């Protein structure tokens, strides 16, 4: 056992990288749920994004185009969910599960022949002055651009939901779709847009796993990250700010357990690898126990909307 090998600076820097895929997927799902739609297919959209991004990056040689491809792939898959739940009024829980099962199958089919292939690497930014700062430099300012993109998307979503008219409409649709409909808003259209945004974000998160974090294509590369993203949305009480806290908390646990595994601590590897999932459960329980009965969930979450008039 050699705990001294674990450097806190590197740990915190790795934490930001580990949190990014979850953060991306979670912020997309947050918007979807604020619009009143429960899409449980995050895992399926993430893994589809992971392979779409990987294939695009390998084919074009550009990791940035890879991320674009991943966002498109995730969004395309999410629209399948959108059509089923919004136009054919299928049960959202069942359809979300179907999306995950379908996405995992689709990804492993597309991924045939990409196992062991190397993708072009994503460059780290080197911000002058800032990245040379002691401590803060390596922790905050020496990452690839997607880390900052993730945080920027969170900030943009926060602003959109809180300060823009569009955000108000989206929240109205999510809180009470009947009332929003009566006011003349297009419930289904708003929801489809939110679903596509959620799919694109999940795709980006997946591609971050296959292009940066792992970085290669393996089956089951997401390993439940999509489900953890769903849990973090609940943990965050549907608020973008708390989402960052949740994602960093989770990223921290992941990085810490990996470092402990590498340091050969006297804890079985299996216990360490299951710890992120257990921590997620504990966080969910702590939150639901504290919150009591009044839930912060959007009022129309998970309900189908059928305009009778």
């Amino acid at each position, binding site marked *: 056992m050699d705990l001294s090998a674990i450097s806190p600076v590197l740990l915190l820097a790795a934490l930001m990288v580990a949190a990014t895929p979850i953060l991306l997927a979670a912020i997309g799902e947050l918007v979807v749920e604020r619009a009143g739609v429960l899409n449980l297919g995050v895992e399926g959209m993430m893994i589809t994004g992971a392979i779409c991004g990987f294939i695009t990056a390998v084919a074009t040689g550009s990791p940035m185009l890879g991320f674009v491809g991943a966002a498109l792939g995730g969004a395309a898959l999410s629209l399948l969910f959108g059509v089923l739940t919004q136009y054919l009024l299928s*049960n959202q829980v069942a359809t979300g599960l179907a999306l995950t099962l379908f996405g995992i199958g689709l990804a492993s*089919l597309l991924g045939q022949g990409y196992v062991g292939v190397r993708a072009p690497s994503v460059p780290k930014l080197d911000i002058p002055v800032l990245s040379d700062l002691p401590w803060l430099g390596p922790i905050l300012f020496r990452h690839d651009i997607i880390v900052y993109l993730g945080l920027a998307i969170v900030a943009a979503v926060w602003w959109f939901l809180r300060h823009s008219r569009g955000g108000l409409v989206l929240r109205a649709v999510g809180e009470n779709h009947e009332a929003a409909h009566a006011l003349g808003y297009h419930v289904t259209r708003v929801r489809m847009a939110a679903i596509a945004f959620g799919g694109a974000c999940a795709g980006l998160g997946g591609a971050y796993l296959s292009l940066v974090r792992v970085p290669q294509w393996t089956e089951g590369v997401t390993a439940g990250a999509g489900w953890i993203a769903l849990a973090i949305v609940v943990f965050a009480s549907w608020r973008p700010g708390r989402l960052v806290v949740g994602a960093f908390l989770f990223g921290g646990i992941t990085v810490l357990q990996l470092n402990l595994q590498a340091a050969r601590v006297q804890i079985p590897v299996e216990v360490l690898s299951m710890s992120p999932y257990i921590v997620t459960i504990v966080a969910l329980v702590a939150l*639901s*126990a504290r919150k009591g009965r009044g839930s912060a969930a959007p009022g129309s979450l998970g309900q189908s909307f059928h305009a009778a008039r």
Partner: protein
Amino acid sequence: MIRLEKRPQPSKVWTWATPVLAVVATMIFGGLMFALLGKDPVLAIRTIFYDPLFGEFSSYSRPQLLVKAGPLILIATGLAMGFRAGIWNIGAEGQYIIGAVFAASVGLAAYPAESVLIFPAMVIAGAVGGTLWAMIPAVLRVKFGTNEILVSLMLVYVAENILAYAALGPLRNPDGMGFPGSRNLSQYPSAANLDLIPGTGMHWGVVAALIAVIFGYILLSRHILGFQIRLAGQAPRAAAFSGVNPGRLVLICMGIAGALAGLAGMFEVAGPAGRISIDFNVGYGFTAIIVAFLGRLHPVGILLAGLLMALTYIGGEVAQLTLGLPVAAIQLFQGMLLFFLLAVDVLTNYSLRWSGREVA
């Protein structure tokens, strides 16, 4: 414009016609997918759906049908109870794993003693293991209102790690020359779950699945609990007013599902799989979700859906050997089936109306 009009009651005809429609649509689009993969679509569909039953090597593949359908039906019957009541246990895969680990531990602890009591003890251990694992999300939901979907799913990953630990640690075969995995239980007479009639694939798990279907049917259609389950799913407020205790319902539904999933794991580890290994679980717990919906959350429907889904597994294996069809294609095919089912289900609850000129 086509408009949807909600039916006062779900259509009886469409309830049973939609799964058939979904299967047909999946065959068509699956065929297209196979064609895109450069395989002859007709041949591929035939290889998957016809050859395992009536083809050249059907004497080998037909027993496999029951072996694969057994766990699917057993798990799906339990899940359907919860799904009907709006309780979403999607962690059956984890309950299946823990059931198998519990049962294998009991069997391996008794090794090499021979007794008629070992097998029943393993059955009980499997059911207890699955139930305990399902009780975690159930109790958390009842006590704290924690979302059971997320907790039960997270516990699958925890269970997989427990499985790996068991296979590499305490349950590892001491005579296995260091290889991971336990002793082979199917070669240990007191613990083995072999074919009851040799060569049919009819092992105790299949019998248990049939019993579960019968009990599930009686419970849902003839018992007050079944009525409460259906009521809680369709009208939660009405259920609360008529004295249904929602917490009790969660515990019962999750408990039944966990017990049946644990049993499925037990019969698998003592029979077809034979031993605890890292890759013991092959996704039955997730495929069973498809089976439950395809069978309309109805035990008899689940029986048929389980057989059909088992057929796609076996047909997929045959197609993999003879046509070189990738395994993932079959996985996608199964996912597609659930998608189509959910899509055409709109016909069950809504009727299509042409609305053109007239103004409402």
